């Protein structure tokens, strides 16, 4: 029971860290950014490459991987996302999807298709109520909490964060104040991309890395963003943990259905209005649209 709960919060933490960037691009630019999956998987592969170079020091390799991916994220933002801003949504989806495809192929070209395992950097088991749990997972969970609080402070106290939050609400209003919205979006995008790499690296000791890992987590993260509300960062936090729990509990009962359950929850969330209206009709009240 405890290990299921811990697994749920671990997955939730990873999903949260990954989804922040998606939620920001969704909310500010109304762009579905498939390229986020490219940044994630390429970052993890760079991390795996850096790890032996820095004598296996996990945080150092992680910092290097994040640092290496930031310029790449900037290039994607500058030359793909920004060019498509204000255009039809479909083109943005297709173009960023193309970036994801190219990323997966680059990974296959450089590293091959073999899954890459990473060993647990802490490797200390804890025994709580007679159950053995990995300290590493607790660390992942705690880092998500720290990140949440840190971002909360960033978005309420820092000018950049405040501008991004304001632009999430009303983009034109912020422009009218004479602020260059694009610059702030660039910064927010790069922060989001860095967090995607961070999430991927933290996840790598729990799972194995393969070229198409970006596709997989993207689907889950889209569900998180839709359930939490697009551009709603607090909502993203809670929905990530809720869906992480869904994955863990379903996984315990029927392991191969775990990811599918997430999409069932997402469908229910999308259908909440019709269901709600159905019950209103039952008790004789007019439907709300």
């Amino acid at each position, binding site marked *: 029971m405890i290990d299921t709960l811990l697994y749920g919060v671990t997955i939730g933490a990873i999903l949260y860290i990954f989804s922040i960037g998606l939620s920001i691009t*969704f909310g500010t630019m*109304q*762009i*579905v950014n498939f390229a986020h999956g490219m940044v994630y998987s390429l970052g993890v592969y760079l991390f795996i490459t850096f790890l032996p170079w820095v004598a296996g020091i996990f945080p150092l390799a992680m910092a290097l991987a994040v640092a290496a991916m930031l310029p790449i994220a900037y290039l994607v933002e500058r030359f*793909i996302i920004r*060019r*498509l801003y204000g*255009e*039809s*949504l*479909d*083109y943005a*989806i*297709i*173009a960023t*999807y*193309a*970036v*994801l*495809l*190219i990323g*997966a*192929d*680059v990974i*296959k*070209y450089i590293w091959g298709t073999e899954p890459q395992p990473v060993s647990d950097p802490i490797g200390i088991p804890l025994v709580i109520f007679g159950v053995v749990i990995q300290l590493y997972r607790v660390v992942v969970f705690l880092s998500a909490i720290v990140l949440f609080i840190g971002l909360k402070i960033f978005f309420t106290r820092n000018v950049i964060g405040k501008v991004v939050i304001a632009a999430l609400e009303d983009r034109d209003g912020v422009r009218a104040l004479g602020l260059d919205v694009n610059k702030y979006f660039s910064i927010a995008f790069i922060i989001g991309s860095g967090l995607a790499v961070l999430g991927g690296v933290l996840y790598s000791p729990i799972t194995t890395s393969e070229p*198409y890992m970006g*596709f997989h987590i993207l*689907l889950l993260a*889209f*569900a998180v963003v*839709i359930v939490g509300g697009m551009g709603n960062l607090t909502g993203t936090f809670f929905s990530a943990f809720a869906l992480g729990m869904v994955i863990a509990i379903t996984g315990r009962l029927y392991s*191969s*259905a775990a*990811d*599918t359950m997430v*999409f*069932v929850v*997402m*469908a229910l969330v*999308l*259908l909440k*209005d*019709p269901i709600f209206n159905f019950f209103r009709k039952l008790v004789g009240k007019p439907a709300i649209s």
Partner: protein
Amino acid sequence: MNLSVTQSVFPVGPANRLLVFRDMAIIAASFLVMAIFLPMYWLTDFAIFCILVLSFDLLYGYMGHLSFGHMLYFGAGGYAASLTLLHLAPNPFLAIAVGVVSGALLAAIVGFVVVRTEGAAFALVNLAFNQIGFWLVLSGLQDYTHGEDGLPSTVEAIGFLDFYDTPVAFGFMLICLILVFWLLKSLVSSPFGIMIKSIKENEDRVKFLGYNTLRYKWLTFVIAGTVAAFAGVLYALVKGFVAPGDVSPLENTRIIFSVLIGGAGNLYGAIVGAVAFELITNLLATTIARWEMILGLMLLGLVFWFRKGITGYTYELFLKMGRRAPAAD
């Protein structure tokens, strides 16, 4: 809206019935001409893929709803047909009937959920459903679908209709393609077609005029899913084999790419795009190792510099030459 480029190039209005027959003859003739130069089993695949892309074009090109989950219906049709052939009777027409009906039912149920979403959410929710279907085929319903191994099936010959005789299969697929083209052509030139094009242009105004757009979107979604399932059935009949790869969400890129390269929003574009894509894959994929890279770069190129597609630019060329272009759409 940039999407409506081809829409404004090809005027909306009821098509002349004779023109539809002329176009059907042109499609048949060009396939027969291609049969001289290309292996016939390639063209069988081309025709099936054309049907799939046509169904997607109805959804994306005409109604403006980009879906990342269209392979679900293709796969549903294919698996339903194969299971029918295996467990009920090896009759191709029974397989077609069961496959198409199950595709339609699936699209009806899924459509009930997805048409309530817009834009990005629509694409993603479809992707999610496709992923669920992929998972079901791969492991959830493994007892029926044989998971990764795929599902082989055989179909018996009825009279001269033998699906393992390449020219006969090719002829049958070509007739199916032409019929589907005729069906969709009639649909998009009908008042219903004008309605779904209006939904693409501005859904709020259509609602404001008092139409229940949800109902039209749902119906279009079901039709698109049904036609895609039909393509899946044909695929299963000809190949005698379906595998989880035929439901894979990753395969949707092929359809989207084809619609874009041909020109979204007109049925000729779908057919030209499907044939162009199949030619590129069949001729290049064997010689170029980094296929996904090329596909990705070409997609980027299409999005940034070649939005009207082959048919869109051809039409512009016609206009520039000062001739009266063939009345398309």
